[in-house]
Each structure stands twice: as structure tokens, then as C-alpha cells.
């Protein structure tokens, strides 16, 4: 998708935080990445290193926390966990699934000094 742009967003948030706090350096950035967020994790990791250069987060570790994909099955009306957007319902085998979670793209916390 646009991993470089997402890293620009991460950098903006970090720089805003750095202005309000006494932050010398960011050591670790933890982000939550939903299964259906469309993020290519290796591309995000690559872009992160490049985009953080020259910021307080230069050299920081990017830790990605996988968030499961969840969907409402319109056949059995159960909320189920699915790995793939086109997977059938694990409970009833139905094919009408509406994603309800798994699009997360969130910065959870920063480890700073």
C-alpha cells in the first residue's frame, strides 16, 4: 500500500510527543497492525528506518503487534476470527462476512530515554 506514508504519520506523532515531553531519544516504537490493514510488514520496516533518520527516533526498533481479523458472519450471525478476507465462516461455512476488526494501524507506545 503506502508504507512510506504511514511512516511519515508515525514520525509526525513522535515529533509531536517529543515537543511536549523531555525526550532525548526514542528506543522502541510499538505499533498494532491489523490483519486487514493492507500493510506489508517488511515494507513498513524498511520505510521506518529510512523515514526516522534525522528524528529523535533514528535507529529505533519498530515492533509490530499483529491484531487478528474479525468478521460478522451474515449467515450464522456469529462474530468470528478469520485470517483471510475471502475465507469462509469457520463456524457455518458461510461466505457473507463483514469485517468488524483487523484494520488497526495504531501506535501503541514509545520506549524513550
Amino acid at each position: 500500500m503506502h508504507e512510506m506514508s504511514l511512516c511519515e504519520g508515525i514520525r509526525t506523532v513522535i515529533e509531536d510527543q517529543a515537543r511536549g515531553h523531555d525526550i532525548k531519544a526514542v528506543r522502541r516504537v510499538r505499533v498494532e497492525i491489523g490483519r486487514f490493514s493492507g500493510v506489508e510488514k517488511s515494507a513498513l520496516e524498511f520505510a521506518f528506518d529510512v523515514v526516522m533518520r534525522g528524528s529523535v527516533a533514528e535507529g529505533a526498533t519498530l515492533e509490530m503487534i499483529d491484531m487478528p481479523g474479525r468478521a460478522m458472519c451474515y449467515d450464522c450471525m456469529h462474530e468470528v476470527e478469520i485470517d483471510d478476507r475471502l475465507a469462509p465462516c469457520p463456524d457455518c461455512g458461510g461466505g457473507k462476512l463483514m469485517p468488524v476488526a483487523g484494520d488497526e494501524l495504531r501506535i501503541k507506545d514509545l520506549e524513550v530515554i
Partner: protein
Amino acid sequence: MCTVCGCGDAKLEGHDHGHSHTPTYDHAYRHVHGRGHGHHHHDMHFGIGPAGVEVPGMSQERLIEIETGIMAKNDRYAEANRAILAGLGAFAVNLVSSPGSGKTTLLCKTIEALGDQPLAVIEGDQQTANDADRIRATGAPAIQVNTGKGCHLDGHMVGHAMEHLKLAQNSFLFIENVGNLVCPAGFDLGEDCKVATLSVTEGEDKPLKYPDMFTASRLALLNKVDLAPYCDVDLDLYEANLRRVNPGIEVIRVSARTGEGMDSWLNWLTGSLSRKTARTAAE
């Protein structure tokens, strides 16, 4: 830098950017103050994290809880746009599709059919003002946003364009996004809903190949249905695949060329606008 993504130097046609584009929390919060939030998390939790986060031997390290969406900057601009639209009782449609689905032609025909109804158009493309020129030829006010290398419109670009358009009360705002079935799905512009145009020449499995866009859309316009007999396609299969990725999606079969289905689409639009206007009046 104008785009959230930083992947291009967007410019409004005829608009010289002479000021800083670095948004600040102050700027954005002024606009969204007092508005209910959608499903996105805007809350900022400043301060030290929960107990036990200090690492032995590295006592000066600390954890700052953020809990902020990576798209937070875009989302603040989108919420500001949404607040302006709500105040006007205006209904904004984010028109998304792959390139060549017939969005602009469909939009021109829609504008002609809506007659005296107040409306305005934001046209997003990487280059050229061709589409805005086509819209203006119908008599409707339009502004072109060229995204440069950017692959989508974002909340900030649309906010600027809205300032230039001077939207009327109870009007339509049509935002024709960059032809792209991937990135625009992830960028809230402050619109009431996304409407995806899918033309019958694209193949029945398009919704399965690009599910996110069709999941994010409230309505799909199955366009160029007059060509269906020449394309060996199954229109029911198009609809089944749309509902497979979004069981709640509404589907209208249209042909901008012959006018087939246009009444249903126009009724859908005017009904949506009436509900929005009534909601604004009630508040």
C-alpha cells in the same frame, strides 16, 4: 508537504501555497472540538505508562502510551471537513473506482440530471485539469486537485478545495478520487460515504481482487451495463462478488451512456441528501 503520505506534492489548480502545511494539534483540534468521534481513536494519553514498565538497569527509560492511529493526522482533517459539511446539511460522496470505469462521464450525466440542485465537485487526478474542465462544461463549479505522484486524495487536500468552492447549504459535494482501487480506501476525506463505480468490462472478480475498496463503500454502481452483451459477463456474478466482500453493499446497475438505471441512482442521491438535511435541521 501537502499530502499525509508525503508521496507527492499535491496542488490545487490555480492555488498557490504560500503558507506552512505542517498541521499542528492546535489547528486540527480547533476544528474538531466538540464533535463526536467516529470509530477512530483520536484520544491522546500523555504521560508515563502503567506500572512495571521500567526496565532494570536502564532506569531512565520510560514508556509513553500513545494509543493513536497512524492515520490520526488525516483523520483530524477529515473530521474538520465532516463538521463543515454537517453544518451545511451538505451530502458528500467520495467517488472511487479503478481508472477508466466511467466515473467522470457518470458524474457529468448526474449533474445534468440534477438540474438546478446546488452542487460542487472536487476532481482528483495525478495530472491535468481535464476532468475539472469536463465538469465545468456542465455549468457546475469544480476544482481540480492534482496529487502529483500521490495515489489518493487526503483530508487536507479536500479541506483546502472545500474552502475554494464555497459550498451552498443543502448541496451535494462530489469528490471524484484518483482512479485507484487500493489507497483511497484507507483515507477518510470527511465524506458521508464512498460510492464505488465498477464497469462491466473490468471482470466479475474485481471485488475479490480488491476487497477493501468495496468493503469501504456503501453503494456500488455497476456501470456500462449496455456493454454487458458484448463482454460475455455475468452481471449477477458481479453482484454476488460485491456482496461476498461486503454483505451490506447496495448495488445499482447503470449506463451513463444510455441512461439506464440513472433514475435509481438519482433517487438514491436525493434521498440521502434529504436525510442529511433533515438531520442538520434537527440538531
